[in-house]
């Protein structure tokens, strides 16, 4: 008798044993199916049940989501999580001080890769995650690390190959533009940086209180604007060998571009603008273009805050004379090297950065996740407040992303010293002179940072 015949036979003549077995299977089915849906059938998530871990997060919508997922994580693993969100600047100070003390009070820490990456490596803050990834008893088979975008992983990976964070959030610099203004003036989205200057000139209408372009002018905050232009020359501010390239002809060209865009086409007072002033200006329909991180998009599509809902275009940073790149920023999550609960912390990282939670981040408009599958998932766009162009911009920027800040230890000093120089150019100072002066001032700081 064939198997099919046997099964048919069972169906036609039900026995008590079969009934009890079927009922048991029916009761267990939802759990089994759920478990399989999460891909956890072969993985023991309860291995560290009863452990309590501490996580230090940065205050932002992504951390809100992480905290919202904590209950689910505890139900799955039995691990209790105590997390706190601290404003960005204070969180960085706390991380620096606690890691330096040698006894940080947290097991998991969020790290700004564009600021603290080298610092974390030199200070030996975080544990290498590669052994965890390679350990099948610690890493769920469905974690699929290969799903993280190569650019994001490369951004998080240290020079010696160590991977001390999971790049859970990445931010690309791009250009927000007001489609209505473009249409009214018959301007198309620029295909090169030269065309960007021409477009800004055409759209600039001070008499109507509309600026052709707006970007950060405030010292420190203004650095990514300059580096975005410099990437158009195919060059970063610090070479792969650690040499400053900040007074090269390419850097000066980018400085001139920064000066021109902010002096000729930006609204008055841009010298003191950080991202929030730029955002307000653009959101109120007072600027035609805004260069900044795509992570600031959410309020632009909020009818209670924005006057340009539905009119926002999301454009990839146009190519420059020698290169086409989008300045890249991002956050990673790592495990404190001195933690005594590293394995439990690794489960937390895995869960918080799984496919479902990364997709949830994108759907909530909380930022761009490190995983490729989130972007490729059609569910991301369903019900999203963002248009198709937003997702296309994210995908296209991801392909050409390159570090927006130098990967050095004294990033803050770099931003301060060069930020002041760039700001001075907005008051009329010569770009080459300011960059040369800043390079001379910063060189000893950089050299000293790698000693000891």
């Amino acid at each position: 008798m064939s198997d099919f015949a046997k099964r048919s036979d069972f169906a036609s003549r039900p026995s008590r044993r079969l009934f009890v077995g079927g009922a048991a299977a029916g009761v267990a089915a939802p759990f089994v199916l759920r478990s399989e849906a999460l891909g956890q059938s072969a993985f023991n998530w309860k291995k560290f049940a009863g452990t309590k871990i501490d996580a230090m997060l940065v205050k932002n919508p992504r951390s809100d989501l992480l905290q919202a997922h904590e209950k689910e994580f505890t139900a799955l693993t039995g691990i209790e999580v105590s997390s706190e969100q601290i404003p960005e600047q204070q969180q960085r100070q706390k991380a620096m001080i606690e890691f330096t003390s040698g006894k940080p009070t947290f097991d998991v820490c969020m790290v700004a890769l564009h600021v603290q990456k080298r610092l974390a490596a030199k200070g030996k803050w975080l544990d290498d995650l590669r052994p965890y990834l390679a350990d099948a008893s610690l890493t769920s088979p469905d974690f699929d690390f290969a799903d993280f975008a190569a650019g994001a992983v490369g951004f998080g990976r240290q020079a010696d190959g160590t991977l001390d964070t999971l790049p859970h959030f990445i931010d690309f610099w791009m250009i927000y533009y007001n489609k209505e203004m473009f249409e009214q003036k018959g301007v198309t989205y620029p295909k090169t940086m030269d065309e960007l200057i021409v477009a800004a000139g055409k759209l600039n209408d001070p008499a109507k209180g509309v600026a052709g372009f707006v970007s950060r002018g405030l010292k420190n905050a203004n650095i990514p604007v300059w580096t975005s232009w410099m990437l158009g020359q195919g060059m970063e501010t610090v070479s792969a060998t650690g040499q400053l390239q900040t007074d090269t002809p390419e850097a000066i060209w980018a400085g001139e571009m920064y000066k021109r865009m902010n002096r000729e086409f930006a609204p008055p007072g841009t010298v003191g603008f950080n991202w929030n002033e730029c955002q307000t200006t653009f959101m109120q329909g007072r600027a035609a273009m805004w260069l900044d991180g795509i992570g600031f998009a959410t309020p632009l599509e909020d009818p209670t805050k924005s006057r340009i809902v539905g009119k926002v275009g999301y454009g990839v940073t146009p190519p420059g004379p020698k290169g086409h790149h989008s300045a890249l920023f991002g956050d990673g999550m790592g495990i404190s090297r001195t933690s005594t609960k590293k394995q439990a912390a690794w489960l937390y990282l895995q869960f918080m950065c799984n496919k479902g939670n990364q997709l949830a981040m994108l759907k909530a408009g909380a930022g761009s996740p490190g995983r490729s599958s989130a972007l490729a998932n059609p569910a991301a766009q369903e019900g999203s407040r963002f248009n198709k162009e937003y997702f296309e911009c994210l995908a296209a920027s991801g392909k050409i992303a390159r570090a927006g800040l130098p990967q050095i230890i004294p990033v803050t000093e770099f931003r301060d010293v060069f930020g002041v120089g760039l700001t001075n150019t907005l008051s009329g100072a010569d770009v080459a002179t300011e960059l040369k002066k800043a390079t001379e001032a910063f060189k000893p700081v950089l050299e000293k940072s790698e000693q000891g």
Partner: protein
Amino acid sequence: MTTLDLVEPVRASTPVEQKLAPRRYFLFALPALVLIAGVIILPWLFTLVMSVMEFKVGGAVEFIGFQNFIKLATDARFIESIGRTFWFTALAVFFPILLGTWAAVIFHREFPWRGVLRTVFIMPMMATPVAVALVWTMMFHPQLGVLNYLLSLIGLPPFAWVYDPNTVIFTLMLVEVWHWTPLVMLIVLGGMAALPTDPYDSATIDGATNWQMFRFITLPLILPYIMVAVVIRTIDALKVFDTIFVITQGGPGTASETLNIFLYLQAFQFFNLGYASAVVVVFFVIIVALSLLLLSLRQKLKWNT
């Protein structure tokens, strides 16, 4: 027998007892001494020690003598920040004193709703500096701020406020004036309430004008109170951080970078604790010198001198 007879005469202490008294009382002062040593003296000594060290968080710590102070003497940004601090302080003391004294003279007079108006006048002082700074930041916005809107209503062009290196210090001073003029008013008003009325009666009989009475009677008499306000305002203005940091972060460029902002950057952004400690030592010397100068001035302006 009177009550006085019942009181036992106080026995004069012997010379030996007088000599021992300070030692006995020392026990009572000990907790306060320990506290002061713990929270003031020890941190100060530690700061002094750090100021002669190369001390960077996460880096090596080594003794470098007076190198930090020598570096400070040649650090253009530090020297400029000192000049800016004094300029800002001068403005943020002078205008509140002038306006606060004027307001005190007005509020000293009897007029309807005086109590209510006084309360309204001192309200800015009650607000938290950071909250105040955030509100002013919004008002200063060159395109969307209410201040430029008000200027446009009277036909004036927009002003750059804190978004121009040439006007940023004056604008920040405006915030300080708005915030702290009420304090000066309160101090001076308190002084005026204690003034004798006789000189005014005599002056009125002699036919003195209001201005003459203010210039030759009120002002000399309230000068000690004004000096108290000057001392408090000077110390406050010298150490202003929150308002400036929230509104401009020391910008545009370094146009509003006072000593405190410079110090914050060195200590908590760049983590150069040794260098920052040297800045603290210099700042401390400046504050002590200024305070002594102002206190000696105050002594000279006392009524009985």
